[in-house]
């Protein structure tokens, strides 16, 4: 019996890294947006936070697009 530990290990590693990374990025993006919300409420603007937020979201969108391309090429 041969258990493919390498494949299992890489699935574990990749899942962990990608999940934590994506959630972190997304949470940062959401922080940026809620900072803008607060800033707008006080009549300020938060350009840096908003730009950062959109960069984060763009990265997440790219990850989703990569996921879809994975599904398309090999399910």
């Amino acid at each position: 019996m041969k258990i493919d530990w390498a494949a299992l290990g890489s699935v574990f590693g990749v899942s962990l890294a990608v999940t934590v990374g994506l959630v972190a990025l997304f949470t940062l993006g959401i922080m940026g947006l809620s900072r803008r919300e607060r800033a707008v409420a006080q009549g300020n603007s938060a350009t840096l936070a908003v730009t950062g937020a959109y960069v984060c979201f763009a990265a997440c969108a790219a990850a989703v697009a990569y996921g879809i391309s994975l599904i398309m090429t090999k399910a």
Partner: protein
Amino acid sequence: MENFSLILAIVVVTALAFDFTNGFHDTANAMATTISTGALKPKVAVAMSAVLNLAGAFLSVEVANTISKGLVDETGIRPEVIFAALVGAILWNLLTWLVGLPSSSSHALMGGLIGATIASAGMGAVHGDVLVTKVLIPALAAPIVAGVAALLATRLSYTLGKKADGKAAEKGYRAGQIASAGLVSLAHGTNDAQKTMGIITLALVAGGAVAPNSDPPTWVILSAGLAIALGTYIGGWRIIRTMGKGLTELQPQQGFAAQTSAATAILASSHLGFSLSTTHVVSGSVMGAGLGRKGGVVRWSTATRMLVAWCLTLPAAALVGAGAESVTDLGDWGTAVVAVFLIASSAAIWKISRREVVDASNVNESEEPPGVVTTAIAAVTPPPAGTVTDDLTATIPAPATTVAVPDPATPPAAAV
């Protein structure tokens, strides 16, 4: 010759029926957390999942081809064996749906195939080591992989996002959850709809209707996609309730973390060649997300019941598959008996489910009152016993009563 095409037609219809149960059994995987956190309205969620499943079915035929080309020796397999396997898989799917437990449809299908093969060709036809490496290890690994990832992601999300509140955060998590749930649906469509396509193509090849090594015909792709989408749209509300509310209470951040970890683990595993069951992955990630929040509670009683169902899936479906195969072996009337048995027990299960209806309107009410599941199980045992042949009656009660065993002990805990 005419008889031959009749059995083929029966196999195709049964395979589509399995596809349908697969769809509504697995709606929960993609949409349970989205529904329970309120990111999408229940009906909208299942509709979206259905559309994506349908789309996924058309994306590729890779999975279907691995099933229909080469995995099984086509010359040795008769359509009856496939039919018997499907009967086992469908009945197990319906039974677990009735008690609201998520279990792997692929395992049910594999179990059915194994049982039917043993009954038709003997023990030697099954490779024990393949069973361990392809079924047992992934089943253990999936919830751990997805669970740990979801746990850490949830922790991080709560630590980082302390200052994230208000409308923007709420909307953001909603969007994120919908996106990752969509990805899970799409992956499910490509994987599971294609399993059915592969089975149908295998049956067509075995029956001589299609040349060996050919791609699935278009009508097969279309009908398999439609069957799984329809099943998804009907929605396995009982399982959605268990997954979304029964295991743990999820907040939007947790729902997002759970769904992201599930989508990642599913894609990573299928891409890296260590296939994991969607059901196991999602259950694990939901539990991980539940544990990741401070003060989050996982209802271990529900988790234990799920685990028992997972362990039983393969042997139970195998038993039914084997029983069905030995009856179909008796001749055409045997096949007819099995078909009637399948329809009768499906109808019985559906009838029992009407006693305690779970649908879009009450899917988010927390755990059912204790005892309902127990009575449902108690009630499910008699009908098959009264339906057909001694051979088959022996098979159904076994899984049903074993699932019931941990139950009497759990209701107090489950009611918390």
